[in-house]
């Protein structure tokens, strides 16, 4: 248990590597198949800004060279892979010449912060409620109210986000409508800024929480049903332990572990959902960056953001796979699965 078997580690690493490789390749191939030329879009933007562009042929050639479009395809591909591995996604065409990696570095902390926060809250609430649904000592109200709340599970966070935005931001004006912090505060480690960030982040986080806790609750419910019939629970009851103690120390503790692997399957949808929530709240994260890039047809940014989000997903799955056997000693790393 103390060390990870080499074969298992290699297997997981191979999956991680293949995921990133296939994603990167898809992101590279797809635009190549398209008739649209990024250099011409760039030129079109210049023309739109200035009215007319002198020497357009020369500029087009220069741009092509900058984007590396003159090399043979294979060389372009290898260069691209190397650049991707080194997080060099080129320059943004909409906010030329800002490097894409700089834009992503600005947006990533916001996305990660929102994601980790809402994930911790939903994991906690969802598992607790799921356990209470099965526990025979739960109050009647809990057993009726939770299943009713469960219908929200299926709704993507963007829909709950719209609803919350309308009620709490547009109508009641309790929370700001958009943004990640107020325009009047200076970003930094100040109290005002922290308050502003929390105030702005509340609705996006809530819209994710209310539609995702049910996923954990449903999974927990299934696991609790299994645990409920175990001999050790019967023994604990026979010993006369307090019901609450049995619930936390005997039932939830044993049921919660498989829930962690459920995360690995869900993380992709969670991140995609959050990207959309960020887009409607204009929250300064990857979602807004992606949406702005789509509006501006800013290919390097679209490619960079997509790659980084897929990388985030693959890494999360990898980490869960690796740490899972450490927290649940019943599971052995198995090479064949």
């Amino acid at each position, binding site marked *: 248990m103390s060390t990870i078997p080499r074969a298992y580690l290699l297997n997981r690493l191979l999956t991680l590597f293949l995921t990133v490789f296939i994603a990167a390749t898809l992101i590279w191939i*797809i635009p190549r198949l398209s008739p649209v030329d990024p250099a011409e879009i760039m030129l079109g933007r210049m023309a739109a800004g200035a009215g007319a562009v002198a020497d357009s042929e020369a500029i087009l050639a220069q741009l092509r060279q900058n984007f590396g479009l003159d090399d043979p395809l294979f060389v372009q591909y290898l260069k691209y892979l190397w650049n991707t591995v080194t997080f060099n996604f080129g320059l943004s065409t909409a906010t030329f010449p800002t490097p894409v990696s700089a834009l992503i570095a600005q947006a990533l902390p916001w996305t990660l912060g929102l994601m980790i926060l809402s994930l911790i809250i939903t994991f906690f609430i969802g598992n607790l409620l799921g356990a209470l649904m099965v526990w025979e000592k739960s109050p009647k109200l809990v057993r009726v109210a939770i299943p009713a709340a469960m*219908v929200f599970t299926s*709704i993507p966070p963007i829909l709950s986000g719209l609803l919350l935005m*309308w009620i709490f931001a*547009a109508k009641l004006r309790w929370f700001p409508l958009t943004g990640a912090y107020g325009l009047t505060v200076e970003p930094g480690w100040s109290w005002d800024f922290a308050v502003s960030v929390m105030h702005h982040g509340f609705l996006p986080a809530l819209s994710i929480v209310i539609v995702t806790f049910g996923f954990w609750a449903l999974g927990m419910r299934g696991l609790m049903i299994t645990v409920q019939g175990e001999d050790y629970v019967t023994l604990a009851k026979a010993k006369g332990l307090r019901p609450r103690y049995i619930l936390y120390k005997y039932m939830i503790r044993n049921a919660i572990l498989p829930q962690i692997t459920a995360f690995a399957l869900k993380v992709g949808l969670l991140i*995609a*959902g959050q990207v959309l929530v960020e887009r409607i709240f204009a929250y300064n994260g990857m979602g807004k960056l992606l949406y702005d890039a789509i509006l501006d047809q800013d290919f390097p940014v679209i490619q960079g953001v997509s790659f980084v989000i897929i990388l985030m997903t693959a890494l999360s*799955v990898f980490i869960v796979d690796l740490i899972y056997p450490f927290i649940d000693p019943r599971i052995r790393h198995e090479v064949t699965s």
Partner: protein
Amino acid sequence: MSDMPLTRAERKRQRRIRRFDNPWLNPKLFWGAGLLLAIIAVGILGRLFWDPELVFVGSGIPKMPPPGFENLRGQSGTFANPLGTEGSGRDMLALIIIGAPNSLYVGLMASLIGMSVGIFLGFTSGFVGGRTDDVIRVLSDVMITIPPLLILVVFQSAFGDVTLTMMALLIAGFVWQSPTRLIRAQVLSMKQSGYVQMARLSGASTWHIMFKEMLPNLVPYLFGSFIANVTTSIVTAVGLEVLGLGPQRIPTLGRTIYEAINAGALIQNLWWWWGIPTLLLAVMFIGLLLINLGLDEVSNPRLRKLKL
């Protein structure tokens, strides 16, 4: 004794027992299917009773509220547009009549293709084994991690406009993994089971074993996976539409929401513009969830004892 005619009360009781014994007839499945059928009915009957031409831009006065409400300009709604109009004068009712079935169509189509591919690959993987199995297993493990939304964003921003069917095909490329994994796992465990061994000993062909012996046992799982994939596909399609991608010329619910957000419908209190498509999508997702919960009860008898 058994020949004696049953009393009416007894017959009724027996019928009820039989009805509750059939796990396919549970209320969740019933309500879920009902909600989806209602949306399909709106799409079909709506075209008969309401003029679909009203989805065109400028067919009415922009931003009219539903009857009984007032917009910011003080205009009150009329029955010419029972659900109001959006920012460029399209009738909301016509918009959902045309748009709602589109979303379902993408979901069903993508999931159906994904499911067919999944059944094929899953059986191949489970039966053939060896290198083929390794390749299929690793590929499905890898592809299940990649969120479809992002690859599709790259695709659409490079190619521009797509048709509904094209979008469904693209999404199908990301929903074959879970049925593949599910079927592979089940096939591997079933291969060892007594009845499959028996069929094999009695000289049944591989096709017979696959489709006559194994597939019927997989039906509840397949249905469950199918419905889950319909949800994923619709979520992905709506996600694309809300980012301003997806079909540009066909009215869809996601695109209506996209236009509403961009026009500031939230601040202008034009709730019918974004709210009606949102509500309809929510109903669709709730219906799919109920079906899935109902199917869970079919495939996992332990859940039947619990009331949800």
